[in-house]
């Protein structure tokens, strides 16, 4: 019963949310919510002038391509028939003229009415016309918005603006009116869209479900040290997910710079060492929030079992197993699997977590730091308690 009530609550909330969204587009964003009969508000991205102009140019080319192709076909047929009678010469001309008229004025209408709001150019550019309330575009709206295109392309310029010798024939559309209207309306509608009650949205053909894969062995290990009483809030979860989605586009120094804002308080809260890579910490938190199997399952630390990111372990000369087990026994099962930590390695152990230990977080760290490592790579010890 209780769960039923909850579901109802979410449905009603969605209703509210969608009503708000229909009334006003979210500011500073080009997405718009559409309420379906299934009582869902899903989002469309609005298509702006830079997506629509290429579509228009493609349509222009297609339009004249169709006219030339069909016109040639009519000419050939008419030429063959005119051998029979002189009647067919003017008839051919008539058909071509009517073809030009119909294609030029009604190409967009026919395309949008019969192909679910798409013309060839829109199909190429991945955009689609729909009504402002999310329904498919009706033939009447398609007709109106396409007839009014000529007003959106106004004012027309003349060639003699640039070349005074040419007589003033105004035929170069500038599209300023449509552009200005698109800028000033919240759904990026031109005048024709406003009159017809339509909008143009992005409707991509190709996309894939993005799954963030964690290929860094240090991430699950570090995640296992995050205290069990730390609750990731909804806002925090969203921030983490956004960060992990975006981090592939950032250089490692930039990642650290961005992540530091969040990680510094977290390091204090978790009582971790100060030199932990901020990027790694956020990644580990993401892993714990979204990908880790369960709280109760032990993490397989593998070769990293001997290392601890905790600040109080930084100065300990040896033996991590006891304090760790007492600290977080649930998360660290299988103590027997741990390798006995060697003395020489413990001097190195903290470096695994810091950003300088491996050039990119994507590379798995060395199974165990080689004994020769400190001498061959002195910067790795920077910031450590040596």
């Amino acid at each position: 019963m209780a769960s039923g009530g909850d579901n109802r609550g979410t449905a009603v909330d969605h209703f509210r949310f969608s009503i708000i969204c229909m009334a006003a587009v979210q500011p500073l964003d080009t997405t718009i919510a559409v309420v379906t009969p299934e009582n869902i508000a899903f989002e469309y991205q609005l298509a702006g002038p830079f997506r629509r102009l290429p579509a228009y140019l493609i349509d222009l080319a297609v339009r004249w391509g169709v006219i030339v192709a069909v016109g040639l076909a009519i000419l050939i047929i008419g030429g063959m028939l005119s051998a029979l009678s002189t009647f067919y010469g003017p008839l051919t001309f008539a058909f071509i003229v009517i073809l030009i008229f119909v294609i030029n004025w009604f190409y967009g209408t026919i395309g949008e009415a019969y192909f679910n709001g798409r013309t060839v150019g829109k199909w190429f550019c991945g955009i689609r016309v729909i009504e402002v309330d999310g329904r498919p575009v009706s033939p009447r709206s398609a007709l109106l918005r396409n007839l009014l295109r000529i007003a959106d392309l106004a004012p027309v310029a003349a060639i003699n603006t640039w070349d005074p010798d040419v007589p003033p024939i105004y035929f170069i559309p500038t599209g300023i009116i449509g552009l200005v209207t698109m800028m000033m309306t919240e759904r990026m509608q031109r005048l024709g869209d406003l009159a017809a009650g339509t909008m143009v949205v992005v409707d991509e053909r190709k996309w894939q479900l993005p799954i963030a894969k964690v290929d860094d062995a240090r991430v699950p290990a570090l995640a296992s040290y995050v205290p069990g009483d730390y609750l990731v809030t909804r806002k925090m979860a969203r921030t983490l997910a956004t960060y992990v989605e975006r981090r592939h586009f950032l250089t490692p120094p930039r990642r650290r710079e961005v992540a530091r804002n969040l990680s510094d308080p977290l390091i204090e809260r978790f009582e971790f060492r100060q030199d932990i890579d901020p990027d790694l910490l956020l990644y580990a938190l993401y892993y714990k929030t979204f990908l880790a199997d369960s709280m109760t399952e032990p993490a397989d630390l593998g070769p990293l079992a001997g290392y601890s990111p905790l600040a109080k372990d930084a100065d300990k000369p040896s033996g991590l197993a006891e304090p760790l087990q007492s600290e977080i026994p649930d998360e660290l099962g299988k103590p027997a699997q741990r390798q006995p930590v060697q003395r020489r390695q413990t001097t190195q152990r903290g470096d695994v977590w810091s950003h300088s230990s491996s050039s990119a977080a994507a590379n798995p760290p060395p199974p165990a730091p080689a004994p020769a490592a400190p001498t061959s790579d002195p910067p790795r010890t920077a910031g450590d308690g040596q």
Partner: protein
Amino acid sequence: MNVAKLLEKRRVDWTELERLCEAMELRGSTDSVSPQHRGASGVARFSSLYRAACADLALADAYQLPPNTVTYLHRLVARAHNQLYRTHTPAPGGWIRILFQEAPQRIFNDGCVRVATLVFFGLFALSMVMGASEAQFPGFAERICGTKMLEGTAESFKEPLAVRPEEYTARAAFYIRHNTGIGLQCFAYGILLIPCLVTLAYNAIVLGATFGYMSRDGIEGADHFFEFVTAHGPFELTAIALSAGAGLRLGMGLFYTRGMSRVDSVRQSGRDAVPVMAASATMFVLAAFTEGFLSPSGAPYLIKVAWSIFSSGMITLYFVVLGFPRNESERGSLVRTARYADLVDSRVPADEGDRDAT
């Protein structure tokens, strides 16, 4: 809580829905995906998968799905929505209804059509009078149209009208393209008001001046000119005025909102203007056929006059008899649509009542 496992589980369904969408987009049916998706079972499968994706989207927040997964779901649902709710192909009877039921009603009641008609025929008559009376307004017609053009017009009507029948179709096609194009352009510019009025006034004054010039004494070919324009005049002149009227209706909606929001007002007037424009375009085509087939032919003048009177009578009947306000046409009209927001608004109190009761 574990998003990875949840996604793995749901992904199978989402991928299937994607495949179905792709097939629907390319071929309009789900038949090609697999034998199980043929016919009605494919449609049923598609809609159940769509509902499942909708449910996933609704619960995305509760599941704490990562934002890119939510974006993916938004796109998936949008894509399936576009395939499930497709554009209705226009019904063949719909246009007849628009032309013979909606259009005359709108025209009869539309103030913009009256204004456009007054402007057009007023300027036309004024300019014709000014062009005809050479004594009071010397050089008026020449200044408006240019001496060259007027003389060219007079020259071309010197001979009696007898175009070879082969050329009728070509002429009709040319007039369809040229005149209907001007009408459509006048309509489209109507949303900006001024260009529409300029086009209308320009056509009225040039036509009037030409008529006036031709009606002066001593112009060669005047008889043939008036014989030529008699047959198609009623259709063509009415069509120009109508297209401008429809255009002005659009523009007025943008500037004079009648208490609605500007966007709603423009949309409303756009809906109102389409039938008028459709009637206008039909008249342009009728005029073009008359102008191509009857006007330039060597048919007796009586036939052309008879056709002119007949067409004027038809236009009058169309406007007055079909256009006279009737109550039942309100209900039977095709344009009765409601915005989705209105429907949602009307349902919210019921939902709240339900909720309070439980």
